[in-house]
């Protein structure tokens, strides 16, 4: 089907000729699956500053005692991370809090990781280094590290990340509230300049983590303490038996902590820097894994959170489960049907409808970027403005289909069971 300028002119006239009711019937997908999210975001931006101010006042009053009364253990667990573990440990030793207990676990590494960790132990940079001969996966490694640690606050970090000087001090501050069981830090890509794909992820992280989790925290809806940087109360971890078998162990642990009644906070000023995939294929593979894990955890392992008759059912948990089911899963499944329906019903004018939708989304996304940059307090607007058109298209037409494929693969083909992120012996024994 060839589109000409005349087709667009005709389509434009067609749009102008529609009544309000007709426009709703044309843009129903956007109205149902896109607008509510933006609406909530705009609303939240109005509410969050009030909540933030309240939290800031509380923090300021607690600042003098925070961190000093807790013993903090930092766990860096990795497999074949010889190249990055030293940088990670040195960044941890450069933290504003100096009395950290740092524990490194080499999970069955075949490279020099355990040797590097031993060297760092001898230099006094690492308090304890443990190494296993067989790889057991991140969960078992972290559990071993928790066992070897002595702190009452456990900070889990990734070996390939580095940290802002005040990251840990800020991450542990919310624990002054005894109901807080876990705190999630902000994650910022440090390689956004290396490729277009990395730049898109920088914008995405700004939206979904820096601002998205800030909003989620205001409503008590932080459902995943990222594996790259999260802090936990030892008592809270013990109440759920520490980490369960992965993947998606960070989401799983957070869901279990929430189920036990622990509050999960977001520390927007606890910043972790990470490298994101620089190629499209690398990103797709990562997202396949994340989305597949999300499906098996949310709807296989923790399906009871959706079931009103279950003893573990709670409104707060049902909200994020339904939110994910409607806006992520249903939105991705329905999108191809919506496009097919548009073209079947309106012929070439459907293209105009889609372009108009995209133009609208670019405008809203740009507005969101401006707000996000302001809320996050980072100079992200001017830096990312030229990429908004591409980002909007990328999010709608590439990542949505990637998600769709991951959902299909997981629902029908149990793709997560073939994911090599977790060793085969563990996958085979995984109960769900």
């Amino acid at each position, binding site marked *: 089907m060839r589109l000409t300028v005349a087709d667009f002119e005709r389509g434009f006239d067609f749009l102008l000729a529609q009544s309000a009711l007709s426009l709703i019937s044309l843009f129903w997908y956007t109205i149902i699956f896109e607008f509510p999210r933006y609406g909530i975001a705009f609303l939240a931006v109005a509410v969050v500053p009030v909540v933030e101010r309240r939290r800031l006042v509380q923090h300021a009053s607690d600042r003098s005692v925070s961190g000093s009364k807790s013993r903090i253990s930092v766990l860096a667990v990795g497999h074949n991370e010889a190249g990055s573990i030293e940088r990670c440990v040195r960044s941890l030793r450069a933290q504003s809090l100096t009395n950290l207990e740092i524990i490194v676990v080499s999970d*069955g590494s075949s490279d020099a990781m355990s040797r590097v960790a031993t060297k760092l132990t001898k230099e006094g940079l690492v308090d*304890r280094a443990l190494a296993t001969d067989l790889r057991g996966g991140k969960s078992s490694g972290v559990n071993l590290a928790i066992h070897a640690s002595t702190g009452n606050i456990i900070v889990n970090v990734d070996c390939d990340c580095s940290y802002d000087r005040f990251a840990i001090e800020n991450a542990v501050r919310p624990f002054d509230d005894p109901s807080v069981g876990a705190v999630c830090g902000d994650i910022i890509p440090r390689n956004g300049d290396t490729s277009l794909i990395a730049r898109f992820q920088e914008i995405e992280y700004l939206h979904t983590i820096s601002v998205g989790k800030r909003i989620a925290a205001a409503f008590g809806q932080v459902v995943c303490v990222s594996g790259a940087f999260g802090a936990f109360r030892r008592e809270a971890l013990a109440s759920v038996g520490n980490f369960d078998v992965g993947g998606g162990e960070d989401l799983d642990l957070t869901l279990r902590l929430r189920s036990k009644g622990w509050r999960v906070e977001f520390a927007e000023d606890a910043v972790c820097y990470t490298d994101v995939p620089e190629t499209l294929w690398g990103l797709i593979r990562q997202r396949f894994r994340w989305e597949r894990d999300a499906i098996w955890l949310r709807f296989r392992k923790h399906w009871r959170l959706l079931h009103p008759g279950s003893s573990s059912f709670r409104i707060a948990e049902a909200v994020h489960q339904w939110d994910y089911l409607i806006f992520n899963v249903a939105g991705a499944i329905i999108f191809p049907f919506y496009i097919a329906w548009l073209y079947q019903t309106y012929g070439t004018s459907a293209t105009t409808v889609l372009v108009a939708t995209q133009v609208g989304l670019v405008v809203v996304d740009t507005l969101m970027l401006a707000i996000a940059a302001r809320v996050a307090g980072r100079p992200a607007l001017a830096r990312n403005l030229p990429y908004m058109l591409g980002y909007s298209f990328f999010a709608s037409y590439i990542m949505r289909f990637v998600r769709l494929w991951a959902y299909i693969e997981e629902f029908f083909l149990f793709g997560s069971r073939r994911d090599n992120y977790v060793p085969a012996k563990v996958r085979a024994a995984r109960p769900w």
Partner: protein
Amino acid sequence: MSPRILLVEDDLISQDVLKSVLEARGFVVDAAKDGFAAVRLLEKRGYDLALVDYQLPDMDGYASARLIRDLHEKGGPKLIALTANAPALEARTGADEIFEMILPKSLDLPSLLQAIDRSLSDPRRGSLIRQAIGLWQERGHSRRPPAIVFPEPTREQHLVLGVCFDLVPHDPTEVILVTDSSVIPSLEQIRASSQHFLLPIVDLSGCMAESADVTFSVSAPDSWSGLAACIDRHASRSTLLNDHFRHAAKLEDRLIAYLFVAERSLAPIVDASKTSCVRYSGCFPDPEVIDAAENLVSRGLLVRDFFDRFHSCINCHSHRLNVREECPSCRSPYLNLSDLLHHFKCAHQGPEEEFRSGSRLLCPKCRKELRHYGGDYDKSGRVLRCSPCGTCSSEPAIGFSCMDCGTHMDGDATPKRDLFAYHMTPRARQTVTRSLVDAPDRLTGARGLLRPAVTRALEKLETDRRKARSEFEVIEISYKARDDIIARHGLSHFMALRALFIENLINKLSDLGEVLAEGDKDYAVVEKREDASFARIADRLLLHCQSSLAINVDPAFRVLDAKANEADRG
């Protein structure tokens, strides 16, 4: 029946005193005032022993004794000479054979009684002594070597040693006999403060190894020869010493004199009975001997040779440390190797002890039983598990525990100490033998105190810049915070700071001079300039070199000008 003693003494007071003492001890004593009276008494009755004064009227003690010996070839009394002039009597032909012992006349009574007891106890003793003298004569010695014994010999030891050596303590003593190595502290005292500090120490115990100068065993002919050679060497080389060193008072002078006389090096010997685990050859007092040797090194009289590195206690400086693998958390050495079990289903991973429930394996997290190795669980590795606190680690901490004072130290913070062997330099041989009148400045001048490397650098700079007629000053740099930094952060940390400091100093001095690290101190050899002597700019310079260091080493300097007086600054 009581032994009979004939006392031949012309001085009636001495005769009365000795007679009453001996009679009080149960001896039957007859006295004669000269040799003829003695012969007459001997014709009337037999005596077991005759005490003969050397200085007798008409016929001296030597002639009287010969007469007695000639008249009584068999069955005559044993003869002991009493004299105030032992060398004169010893010089007489055959005196050693006629007299069993030659005792000084000023001898204290207990020693005399001991000598009499010894003489009367063995009828074959005289013959044995004569044989021993024969053995010494074969090795070039006309008599048995006069010796003093440490510790005080038992009666039995005295009897045996008295055959081979002349144990009567009169000068000149030639050897110090040691029957038990436990008396080394007494020997150290002799080296440090006695006039006998140059004498060879003879090991009779077989336990002193290189600490002694020579070993001696009655049954080993070689050891007789070795001892004779050693006595000759000490005697002959002592005569080469100048007066200053022959009668030295300072320990370092005594040490260098001894090393010259003994022709040996100051060598460390491993000895676990000492807190330093090392004693030095020659039986000089430890640790003062090390300071003395280091001073001699700085004077260019000794060179050192690395022996070993010891960790020492931060509290009592003992080297007797127990090196242990310890728990990084509680420092207990009670670590056991444990298998790590990984339960696949719930991701719990921990030491096997925590899974053990009798003969069963139960996961401590989910309480499921682990039955199927490879299916339910596997052993992912091994860890060191601390029994007291339960902490696991793959890499134990290293700790030191002092066996003497019980102090515990972390491996990194434990100070290290290097020990050296010391050898004489040709310059030392010249120094101890040269007349002091010839070159008094060489011993006392500031340049003589410089370490050899510094002296070499100074001479090289002076040679290089002779045309410019430059003068140089030597600055010794020490670090006041050294001990404190080593105690807190370990020697390696201090050495790193010191290296950085020196690098800064080298950069700052540029081509004005050279910086050298020698032992515990650093030295800067710098060109002397009228407009800016080192002492004037030093405070600022050291402050600058210190400024980039994380910890203040607190440098202090001292100008060691080869000509001018020394000046201390800090």
